[in-house]
């Protein structure tokens, strides 16, 4: 029930922003939300996008793409990252089509799909624009540059307490245990592929800091959620004080809307995620799909994304109003490269063990 309410609110917001005639909302076959963007011109074909990405971020890109391809109706099905992965993997192994384009912030899952032969090679004039770390086999492309940030409620967290690094966060939670108990939120890595990917990379960055942070978060009875937006909602509302490992683009969008949210790029290291796009091997409209992926990496698509959806350029240019050093020039950026090294993240045994450790620290240690 909770999900569907959110969906309705989102749809209403979009309808207000885009125009009432443009949107049609229906429930998909698997229960995922399906949003249709009717072709602005005479409809000739349909592009089906299966996405684990917020519709608000995606809508401007879709509409701009439709300016270039006026005959194209675009259908978007929304998923949580793990659901998208399992649906795509199942469809691939059964040889069924599942959409023309998969978009997911959990690029390790896309890499795993591509490694299992579920991706189709994409060619296009703009694809060489993707940085080397954001293109694997011309099959999985990273098309955004999204620093992973901490957010806090400006009204409730005093400026002196705002943590600048991962270690500071751990110290703060230890020092002010009472005040922050139950008021820090992060991803539920068991539900969210991206949460798992981020936590995994945290663990690899600094083992000691990660251990301490995990311990502090557990002791502070961290609140875990499936998605960035839910935590951001609660931080904005003041129910949560700090959100950890949030997607910078979503957080910045809240800031632009005037919500009392502060954004910190951790000064010790800032993970940078590139949202992935992939064309499945059995895509019904591979040509159109390739055109869309190419559009995402084109100067025009990047411009729209930077001004309306993701706010950071693929080259790392940051929008104003973000605390912490510049992520590129200061050398703190740790881009998660789109490549076969992510397969270790997706290893079943390793994942199982990681989740066990994580659950033990985060959930069971809570009194």
């Amino acid at each position, binding site marked *: 029930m909770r999900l569907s309410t959110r969906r309705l609110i989102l749809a209403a917001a979009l309808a207000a922003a885009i125009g009432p005639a443009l949107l049609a909302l229906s429930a998909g076959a698997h229960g995922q939300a399906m949003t249709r963007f009717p072709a602005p011109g005479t409809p000739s074909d349909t592009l089906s996008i299966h996405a684990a990405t917020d519709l608000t971020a995606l809508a401007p890109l879709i509409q701009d793409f439709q300016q270039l391809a006026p005959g194209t109706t675009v259908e978007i099905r929304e998923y949580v990252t793990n659901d998208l992965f399992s649906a795509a993997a199942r469809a691939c192994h059964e040889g069924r089509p599942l959409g023309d384009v998969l978009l997911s912030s959990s690029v390790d899952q896309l890499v795993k799909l591509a490694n299992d032969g579920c991706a189709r090679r994409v060619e296009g004039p703009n694809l060489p624009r993707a940085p080397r770390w954001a293109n694997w086999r011309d099959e999985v492309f990273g098309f955004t540059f999204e620093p992973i940030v901490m957010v806090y409620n400006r009204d409730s967290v005093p400026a002196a307490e705002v943590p600048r690094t991962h270690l500071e966060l751990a110290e703060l939670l230890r020092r002010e245990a009472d005040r922050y108990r139950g008021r820090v939120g992060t991803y539920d890595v068991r539900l969210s592929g991206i949460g798992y990917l981020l936590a995994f990379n945290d663990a690899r960055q600094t083992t000691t800091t990660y251990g301490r942070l995990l311990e502090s978060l557990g002791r502070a009875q961290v609140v875990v959620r499936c998605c960035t937006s839910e935590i951001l909602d609660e931080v904005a509302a003041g129910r949560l004080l700090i959100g950890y490992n949030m997607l910078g683009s979503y957080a910045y969008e809240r800031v632009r809307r005037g919500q009392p949210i502060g954004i910190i790029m951790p000064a010790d290291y800032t993970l940078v995620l590139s949202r992935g796009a992939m064309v499945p091997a059995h895509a019904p409209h591979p040509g159109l799909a390739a055109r869309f992926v190419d559009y995402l990496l084109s100067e025009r698509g990047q411009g729209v994304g930077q001004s309306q959806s993701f706010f950071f350029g693929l080259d790392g240019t940051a929008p104003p109003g973000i605390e912490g050093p510049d992520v590129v020039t200061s050398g703190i950026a740790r881009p998660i490269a789109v490549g076969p*090294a992510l397969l270790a993240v997706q290893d079943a045994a390793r994942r199982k063990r990681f989740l066990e450790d994580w659950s033990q620290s985060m959930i069971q240690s809570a009194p």
Partner: protein
Amino acid sequence: MARREPSLFLRLFALMSLVLAFGAAVLMTAAWYSAREAADEAYDRLLLGAAYQIADAIQVQEGEPEIALPVSAFELLALSDRDRIFYRVLDPAGRTMTGYESLADPAAEAAAPDKALVENATFDGEVVRVARVSRRFDDPQMRGDAVVIVAQTVEARQALARDLTFRSFILVGVMGAIAIGGTIFAVRRALAPISRLEVAIRQRDPLDLTLVSVSTPRELAPFVAEINSFIERLRGRVELMQQFIADAAHQLRTPLAALEGQVDLLSNNEVTPEGRRHLDRIRVRTGQLSRLANQLLSHAMVAHRERAVAGSLVDLTELTRRALDDAIPDTLERDILVTLHAPPDPLIVSGDPVNLAEAIKNIVDNALRHGAPGRITVRLSRHGARAVLEVEDDGPGIPPAQWARVVQRFGAPSSDGKGSGLGLSIAAEVAAAHGGALCFREKGAFGFVVVLTLAAQGREVA
């Protein structure tokens, strides 16, 4: 007719190119194989390294095997950044701990497999290189070999092999180009003596019967020797023939003179008118015969001198004057006006004075016998580098259709039987030997003209 053979240069060039092309093909194949091997060797190390890293991460905890795949192993494999990676970890009991269940163990059937093994295989429809390493566990709770199988597609290897092969290709190509260039140079240099010999033979005068004296490599010496021996034989034949003709003519002259005398004696006696007619005919025929003998002798002499006498500088005017004196007999039945027009300065040509005089005598004699009822005019002049002698007579002349034939030996014996058909051919031969020519003009000032052109700076007569 001999079949036309391709040139020696082309033969050598084609054969050398063939050998080179074959060599290049062999080299390229070898390069491709060694490149593939090198690429395999390089990437096999990565594959094995990754497999060992993974094997090293297997741990026994509370009697159970556990594996935390090391990211570094995948980062190692990611060095070939476009290749798909498949892996499978088996515990000592043979159960899959993690990875791709369908990835076959390449040493599953081997009784005592090597500790490390790399080979080619296919997985998921793609060619892969598979590495298998095992790790021995001797824990009390767990004994046996844990196995790590790591497979990777071969795009990076192929790219490396292609790259290496391409570099060898460039090297072989450059070597080939150098070799071809060297071949062209070497073959041209080696065949140069043939060209030299060819030029030397081609530039020889057709009448030159001296021996060829060009320095040649050993291989060509037999040809030159054969040519020289041929020339010697030819020279012998020609001399023999000339000698024979000269001898025969000479031998004929004596009995002919006797015959003429007997005829003259006979004509003094009383003979019937019928007999006198026959007698006159005999006299005419005898005269013709002795003239023929004279001309044959003259021809043989001319031919001999052409080969044997070196040229000298001759005043053509003086020469012509004397030749005219010789040519016009004192005892001519009819009155004839012979005029000589000559430039005031001496007209110098290079040549054999005897042969030139013979030529002029033959032309004038021809005019006397065949035309010229009353007038013969001889004109000498200089036209640039050429000396020109014209003999014009008021006779009937020679029809143009016969011009080409009258300059050949016995080409056009005159129909009235008075000529031998040798006179003009002797003149033409002498003209040719002096770098000149004999030609005709239908109408001069008053009659038919024979024109003898000579080089004023005549060629040396060999």
